[in-house]
């Protein structure tokens, strides 16, 4: 096994969660990279939908924006943005909503709006985008982001997109159709909601990562599942496909397409 970065581990681990044939509503950046890696490896028939309108996109290089021409050219069809949200997402046709986040809390709620007070913000983030309704209506949600004290916080200043709300069956009480986040994939580990409480606990540590590292990089008292797995290392196929994808992207754009 060749050496790999924690970023690569994160992307590979996230890509593995996407079942072949699943219909996936893809956020730009890390989710898009992981979803396309899945499509190029284990899940060739995954269906990628971007909020800008492409359905069944099969980009050769990663898009830098949510509406790159590459997505339109490789899609089965391109529909108006409103239709994406109305017929395809709210219509109940999305199996997996694949989201990034600026911050998450222990119940998988997401903040992409503001840090500090809404009216006197410490940091103003981009805002909601498509996430609140993806988080609400996709049959399940995967979240991918780099783990740190600043991103995994005890209390969000602002809940932009709901995960399991206040935990337990709060989500059901809210009447949300989808079952919410089923995994958070980071550069350190995989977290999944604990049965009953729906609090995210670590279920798999990436190779070489210690519990201490995870604890240090989590803003709440993170817990570990009794049966804690170790994530399988990226294999040659996965790494090869990921690096080739990034190389093609860099050649086309001069960027790897994983920002934002």
């Amino acid at each position, binding site marked *: 096994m060749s050496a790999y970065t924690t970023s690569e581990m994160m992307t590979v681990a996230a890509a593995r969660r996407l079942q072949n044939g699943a219909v996936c509503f893809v956020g730009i950046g890390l989710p898009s990279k992981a979803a396309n890696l899945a499509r190029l490896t284990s899940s060739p028939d995954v269906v990628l939908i971007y909020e800008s309108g492409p359905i069944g996109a099969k980009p050769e290089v990663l898009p830098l924006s949510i509406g790159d021409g590459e997505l339109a050219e490789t899609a089965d069809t391109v529909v108006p943005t*409103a239709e994406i949200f109305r017929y395809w997402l709210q219509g109940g046709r999305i199996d997996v909503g694949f989201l990034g986040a600026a911050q998450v809390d222990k119940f998988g709620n997401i903040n992409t709006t503001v840090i500090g007070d809404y009216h006197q913000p410490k940091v103003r983030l981009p*805002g*909601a*985008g498509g996430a609140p309704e993806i988080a609400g209506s996709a049959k399940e949600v995967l979240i991918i982001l780099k783990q740190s004290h600043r991103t995994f916080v005890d209390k969000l200043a602002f809940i*932009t997109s709901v995960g399991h709300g206040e935990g337990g069956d709060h989500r059901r009480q809210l*009447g949300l159709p989808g079952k919410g986040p089923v995994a958070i994939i980071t550069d350190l580990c995989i977290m999944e909601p604990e049965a009953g409480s729906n609090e995210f606990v670590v279920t798999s540590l990436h190779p070489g990562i210690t519990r201490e590292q995870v604890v240090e990089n989590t803003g709440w008292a993170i817990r570990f599942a009794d049966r804690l797995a170790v994530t399988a290392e990226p294999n040659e196929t996965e790494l090869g496909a990921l690096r080739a994808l990034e190389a093609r992207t860099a050649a086309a754009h001069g960027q790897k397409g994983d920002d*934002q």
Partner: protein
Amino acid sequence: MADLLSLSEAVQRFVNDGDTVALEGFTHLIPTAAGHELIRQGKRDLTLVRMTPDLVYDLLIGAGCAKKLIFSWGGNPGVGSLHRLRDAVERGWPQPLEIEEHSHADLANAYVAGASGLPFAVLRAYAGSDLPKVNPLLRSVTCPFTGEVLAAVPSVRPDVTVIHAQKADRKGNVLLWGILGVQKEAALAARRCIVTVEEIVDDLAAPMNACVLPSWAIRAVCEVPGGAHPSYAHGYYERDNRFYQAWDPIARERETFVAWVDDYIRGTRDYAEFQQKLAQANAAEAR
């Protein structure tokens, strides 16, 4: 019937200070040239509506054209923050900016409702989100059949919508294709619509079910090739990713921003002259 006008004349005729204006285009076909012209003409107190404010609204806000922003995602896609938007929200420069914040699904539905002549849109949204706490316009409505409580949001009815499209014919019928975003809905939701196009042709040669805006549904068509830069026009030119990155240092500080606007926008007569100037600067940098 739409008039074929210069962009300058169209903006003069159809955009008033204080108007609610939507410049739409979802990463594709962003009407940048029209944004520049609003600045050149010194339009003031605009309420700007746009799902993704993007560079075009960072410009308008920084240049002092806007008093309010209605939006659902405000960033420089793939790069980072919109510094002028943040400066206006966080420090009131060059003037305070009121913001009204939605989600994409909400605003997309609000444009659909606007195009449909309805006062509000119904969608399944916002349960568990804090957005309704900061936006009192996110309300609810109860289904008279099932009792389900759904989100109700006001429709968007801009005074003026501006979009950019690939082609128009000489009668002013407009064709766009590729990523369509919410342009058709934004155009039809507006009282007045201006369309800038890459080119005016004899025959649109549109597929039977293509996205065509008939001439009589819009007010003005303006030929502005390259008018969607730094976004792209499918079939004409690609996204200028370098410019999105270059924008970050320009917009980061007030001084560099003002200098850029004075030089490139207020200092040029029209978009063609702007393009020339930008090309010269790029060529100089490449040397």
